């Protein structure tokens, strides 16, 4: 398909004898918000981990913008413009917002063999801008992430992905353990992605959240895709019935 930003073809993954992914073929359409649903162990995390470079597929092909790619480590995915925001582990609580925004991609004033002096001025000014861009109001980029609420942390993670001009943003259970108010905010973020031209992949247990902010829903069960429809052409009940 011409408008597919990521296409995966016949992906297989085994975990010590367990066939976790059984030949998954899927196109992620550019600019679309795709909801990925399924029970625990259905294979959605496996699929996401492969796309974000945490695991590698045992078999199958991944194309990004038409080119066949190899995603061997998280950095490969990030370099391709695929950013993943995990439920818990995308922020270091003992570090400041500015430091967290640039982990692994710190701007340096000069560097020798990849190690260099941090450009702290740039980090401060860019993180202020990045946070403001996602409509998050934080007093200072020097606040520790550990001081933030769950929703604010997700906001900072989204700001980070935006700042690095991600083309595809994968959000893994971003609304878990959030208050109602914060959940609204995260759903707002996902809806806003389309205006920014970013493809969203939203993984959730909560069907209502998916139907609220996604264009298309893909359901997985036992390592396979069992449903792939536009949200306007299906219902929560239908999705539940195939899981």
């Amino acid at each position: 398909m011409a408008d597919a930003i990521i296409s995966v073809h016949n992906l297989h993954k085994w975990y010590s004898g367990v066939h976790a992914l059984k030949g998954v073929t899927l196109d992620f359409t550019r600019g679309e918000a795709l909801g990925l649903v399924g029970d625990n162990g259905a294979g959605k995390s496996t699929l996401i981990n492969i796309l974000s470079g945490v695991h590698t597929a045992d078999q199958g092909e991944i194309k990004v913008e038409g080119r066949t790619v190899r995603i061997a480590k998280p950095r490969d995915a990030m370099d391709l413009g695929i950013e993943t925001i995990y439920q818990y582990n995308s922020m270091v609580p003992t570090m400041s917002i500015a430091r967290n925004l640039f982990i692994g991609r710190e701007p340096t004033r000069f560097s020798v063999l990849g190690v260099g002096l941090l450009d702290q001025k740039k980090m401060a000014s860019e993180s202020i801008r990045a946070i403001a861009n996602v409509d998050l109001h934080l007093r200072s980029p020097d606040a520790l992430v550990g001081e933030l609420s769950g929703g604010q942390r997700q906001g900072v993670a989204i700001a980070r992905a935006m700042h690095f001009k991600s083309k595809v943003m994968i959000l893994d259970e971003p609304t878990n353990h959030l208050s109602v108010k914060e959940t609204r905010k995260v759903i707002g973020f996902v809806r806003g992605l389309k205006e920014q031209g970013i493809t969203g992949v939203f993984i959730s247990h909560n069907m209502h959240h998916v139907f609220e902010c996604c264009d298309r829903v893909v359901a997985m069960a036992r390592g396979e895709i069992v449903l792939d429809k536009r949200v306007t052409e299906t219902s929560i009940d239908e999705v539940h019935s195939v899981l």
Partner: protein
Amino acid sequence: MHQQKFEFLEPDVKRLFKTYLEKPELAGLILLLLLIVVFQIRSHGVFLNQDNLRGILGILPEAGLVAIGVTILMISGEFDLSVGSVFALMPMTMAVLMVHGAPFPLALLAGLLVSAAIGFINGYITIRFAIPSFITTLGMLFMARSLTVVVSGGFPPLLPADLPNWLFTSFVGPGNMFRMSFLWFAGIALLTSLMLSRTNFGNWIKATGGFPPAAAAMGIPTARVKIICFMLCSMLSGFAGMLQVLRLGSPLPSIGEGMELQAVASAVIGGASLAGGIGTVMGGIIGTTLIRVIDNGLVLSHVDANWFKFAIGFLTIFAVVANAWMRKRAKAIKMEG
């Protein structure tokens, strides 16, 4: 519930908590200054006189360099009990090579390579087999100490007479206040401190220790970062051991015994967290200085010197309890707008 409890707190108090979170070494520094005043009074002014300061500053670099390495490693989320043994093995390696005719620079290089290799083994085994570094380095504590005795052949080898003491142990500065070793210590402290707080690699160390899954997800090679910290820690310990041997003039196989625990105490008193992610090089140095000051100050104040270990032990537990309490309280206050 916690938040409500703190609603009455003044902004000043909040700021204090926040300062603490950003500067975990502050409490240690205040205690250090307090003790200096107490010892100065109790010793009737002897504590801060030139001779006594010279004594303290002359041996501080040795324990201080070990503490710097242990602190950085602890920030990366790991632990090294083998530093005391490496402290002895490195100079012993050098001494044996020099007895066999190797020139000093070559022996120094070999000694540092041996230290780096031990650090690498510590790190590699810890990560490869996913076991606690407490165990790996406990094993290495015994192995490296054993190697030290084995290579010495049971007798401390005689050091050659033409050692570059001018570069490491000679007294310099106004009133011959410092040994050269202090300049090495200050230089290394400055460099490592800059590395930790001002470079991208320092950011990776803090991220790796602070929350490993997040660091890995952001593409940081956490295993490599930890192994480098293990190697740095071993090399600093070996270098410190060499300084002590040059000061004493003889490579005893027993030096550095118990040093591993004092180094951990230094790091912790200086605000480093055993869980990783929190700590500063300055904190490790303040912790070491505090221990040296107590050691020296107790003697000058005519207190039974056997209270020394009691004081260090008490201070360590007190520091960790206080740190844990402060962290919990500070976290309970949400400071965002």
